[in-house]
């Protein structure tokens, strides 16, 4: 089953000053896709993600989400199309888990961050879905890395963007927590019909859950199926 194309990247060249890819990237992703961005250290995974969320300007090319070109809309509007989960959530002083999750509604609220009843309902709904009711009143600093991560992902869902990017979401989790997280994310992608893209170094676990792999290698980015990735000689190449 294929969802509609939500993320469309055309002729994208990214990098700091020098391009990190020798071949412009043309790639797209659909609603319901659960994509793992794979690449060795220094190939530009983080730069690629930074370019998608707008921290870095693309050296060339266009990114559009649901047919809306990102370079034509304001930074604030962009946060209604794409949300981002950093690999490590800051341990903010005196912030509650619920406050963290509520930040997801800020692209829709006014300057005083007044949330409507509808906003609150969305927040409550996802808190239930993520099973976070027990810890919403806790301080961020009181819960484990895994729970904080989960709250941050819940926040991304509350933001209701068609595309969600996660930078190495498994980096600080133990083996079982990693598997749990990825299977949860996979479920979210299909049930909520979102396009989730994450970077990851745990290739065996990632390959087990994701629907596609975006392989960043030899200065080019290509979309491969999990089978193609496992049998394509990527592993033997670097051994």
């Amino acid at each position, binding site marked *: 089953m294929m969802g509609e194309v939500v993320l469309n990247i055309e002729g994208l060249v990214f990098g700091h000053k020098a391009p990190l890819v020798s071949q412009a990237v043309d790639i797209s992703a659909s609603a319901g896709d659960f994509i793992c961005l794979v690449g060795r250290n220094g190939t530009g995974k983080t730069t690629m993600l*930074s370019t998608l*969320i*707008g*921290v870095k300007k693309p050296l060339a090319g266009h990114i559009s989400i649901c047919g809306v070109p990102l370079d034509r809309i*304001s*930074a*604030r*509007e*962009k*946060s209604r199309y*794409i*949300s*981002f989960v*950093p690999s490590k*959530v*800051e*341990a*903010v*002083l*005196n*912030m*509650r888990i619920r*406050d*963290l999750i509520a*930040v997801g509604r*800020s*692209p829709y*609220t006014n*300057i*005083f*961050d007044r949330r409507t009843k509808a906003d609150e309902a969305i927040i409550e709904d996802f808190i239930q879905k993520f099973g976070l009711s027990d810890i919403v009143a806790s*301080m961020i*600093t*009181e819960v484990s890395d895994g729970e904080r991560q989960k709250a941050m992902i819940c926040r991304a869902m509350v933001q209701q963007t068609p595309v969600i*990017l996660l930078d190495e979401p498994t980096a600080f989790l133990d083996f079982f927590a990693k598997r749990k997280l990825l299977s949860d994310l996979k479920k979210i992608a299909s049930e909520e019909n979102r396009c989730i893209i994450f970077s990851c170094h745990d290739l065996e676990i990632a390959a087990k859950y994701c629907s596609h792999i975006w392989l960043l290698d030899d200065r080019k980015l290509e979309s491969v199926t999990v089978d193609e990735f496992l049998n394509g000689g990527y592993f033997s190449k670097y051994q």
Partner: protein
Amino acid sequence: MNRSLSYIIKYALIIFALIALAILDVCTGSNKIPLSDIMDYIFGSSDMSVDYQFTIREFRLARLITAMIAGAALSVSGLLMQTIFRNPLAGPYVLGISNGASLGVAVIVLGSGMFLPSADVSNFAILIAAGLGAAAVLMLILAVSLRVRDILSILIVGILVSGVVASVVNVMQFFSNEVNVKSYVVWTMGSLDSVSFNDSVVLIPVCLIMCAVLYMFSKKLNILLLGEQFAVSMGLNIKWLRVIIFIGVSVLTGAVTAFCGPLGFIGLAVPHISRWIFNTSDHFVLVPASMILGAAFLLCGDILSHTLYSQGVLPINAVISILGAPFIIWIVFKNQRTVI
């Protein structure tokens, strides 16, 4: 929601404390006014003596307003700096703004002594000099923050600028005469008494408008707490946010320093007290809370500096540090888990 109810109760309590301290502050001074007289006057049951009325109108009111505004302005500045630098040790002075103001004052107070025999510098000249010094450092910091992305680099530049400016002042002290050095040192001890009612008329609108403007950025600051990369993904323009906050904080600390000297400690401590009392990181709550608590804190300092020593007024800076530090240490210990 019971959380907003608890905020309302806490706000009511600290506002009540502030009012009580304000009344107490009006009573204290070289010429003591009995509390009962003031209470009677407030509730309109009797007239106060003309003598007292004159004292209050000419001296106490200006001092009271200055203390409250300065405390509020420095506390808000400290809160915002802690958020922007994402460092609980940051305060209104990390950018070196007040050192800039000090340099301005040093140039005029100490410099005049190098060429003129006596140091008779007017209050107005000190104000202008402090303002110019603060503005000069602000320009430097803005130039750096528009070029440099890394917030730690900006922090390092700020600290280095403070250091350099302080050293320049040291050299000037070395070459200056005793009288001028003494009057400069006295200025650095801080004072709430040198502000006249006319001066405070300038200070009030500047500080209140600035605090109101900065309050408008609470939503952005709340997002920034979760990290810069994340904030950008939420549509924040970090560079401009920094520039605006730096300008606001500089105006606040520059104005307060110009009028009262470099008042230490409050800007660092009060944001922590607010977080501790309100148990939140929400700037919509913390900005007004810091203003009220900062005002109350400086009033405490002012009252104590006038009452601890019967022969005169102790330097306010010393009083707030000596009495405030143990309190903060206690909070840090109580709050250990959440202090990074």
